[in-house]
């Protein structure tokens, strides 16, 4: 009984130290390539933006934004996060979402649109998941500020 509990606890707590750190590694190039490099990522982000503006959960918060600039910055950010040779020049996530009171539902909705956009552009499941894993740290910087 105690052993099973210990195994359970360690399995669950293991997560704390298992988040993949976005550091320079051999896998980095692969994810960036799997996303279609910068032009592939730009297409995914464009697709995602079309989905977002049609989504009643999100449309209001995205109304009036500079779409071209948003597209460029998000593309650079995903390019950078996937290990590509890009630099994100926009504001910090905390700053960019300050006062917006982004909800869990909205964060999840955007994540879902990203997944569907990646799927539309034939990004393999493994690469989709690896990109999502790298977006997890953004959650706490975006939601609830």
């Amino acid at each position, binding site marked *: *009984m105690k052993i099973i*509990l210990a195994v*359970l*606890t360690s399995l669950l707590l293991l997560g704390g130290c298992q988040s993949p750190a976005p550091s320079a590694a051999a896998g980095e190039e692969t994810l960036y390539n799997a996303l279609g490099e910068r032009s592939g990522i730009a297409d995914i982000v464009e697709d995602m933006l079309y989905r977002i503006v049609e989504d009643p959960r999100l449309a209001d918060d995205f109304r009036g934004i500079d779409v071209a600039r948003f597209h460029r910055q998000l593309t650079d950010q995903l390019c950078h996060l996937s290990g590509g040779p890009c630099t994100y020049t926009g504001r910090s996530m905390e700053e960019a979402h300050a006062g917006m009171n982004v909800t869990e539902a909205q964060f999840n909705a955007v994540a879902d649109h990203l997944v569907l956009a990646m799927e539309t552009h034939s990004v393999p499941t493994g690469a989709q998941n690896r990109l999502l894993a790298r977006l997890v740290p953004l959650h706490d910087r975006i939601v609830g500020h």
Partner: protein
Amino acid sequence: MTHVRSLASLLVLTLMPGLTVADVGSRLWATGGVTTIEGSAGGGLVPMAVLSGYASDTEWGGTASLSRLTTDGYSFHGAGATVSAFNRVELSVARQTLDLDTLGASLGQDELAQTVYGLKVRAFGDLIYDPLGQWSVGIQHKRNTAEAISNAIGSRDNTGTDVYISGSRLFLAAVGGRNLLINGTLRATRANQTGLLGFGGDRNDDHELMAELSAGLLLNRHWLVGMEYRQKPDNLSFAREQDARDFFVAWFPHRRVSVTAAWVQLGDIAGLSDQQGPFAAIEASF
């Protein structure tokens, strides 16, 4: 047959566009799991810390499900419904019926049945975004409606209440780029065969702690394969009880629908040895 008909109307209801059913919630695909035979969200046998459906922090939703399991000696039918609000609280009700295909004559009953009322609260954390995972506490109040048999086999009560704590975590891109779902549940219970054979017995009449474990791999957002393990109490000398396990495949063709198939091994049940067989369930989310 009534099962089939209610299922059909259920699917029509939830799939029909333009109906004023609220949009299905925002949480990521398959993160509501499926409905356990006791009604709470989880796998087939083991509840998880996740709440049913897809409701996120500003949403509510729920599920309706039907399940069936046949072994050498028994046929099990389950029907369940849940409502979840704000990714915080889940209410569930499940009706379980066990047809005594083999034992009916000797026990003077055609079937055993119970209703399970469940409440689950997410205490803290998040399945994906919190490194510690998501932790929930739950309670299942069970009312067995086949009084005669419980008395005949020596169980002490026809009602019982389980209390459990579950921790779940989805590890993104954990195995070959696939997402891995791990869940552990610790349950205090005195239920015999989840309560279908009553509660408590001559060998033990107290709540005991039971460990339950489930693990699943999301091959993609539509397919989840995995296994579950569940300890069970062994309270009756009339009917010894072993731990249960199953291997499952769950298919999520749409956010509103899931279909689960499993091979379930339940051990001995009421004297019939090594009961195992195929399990199937279908679920609609709203």
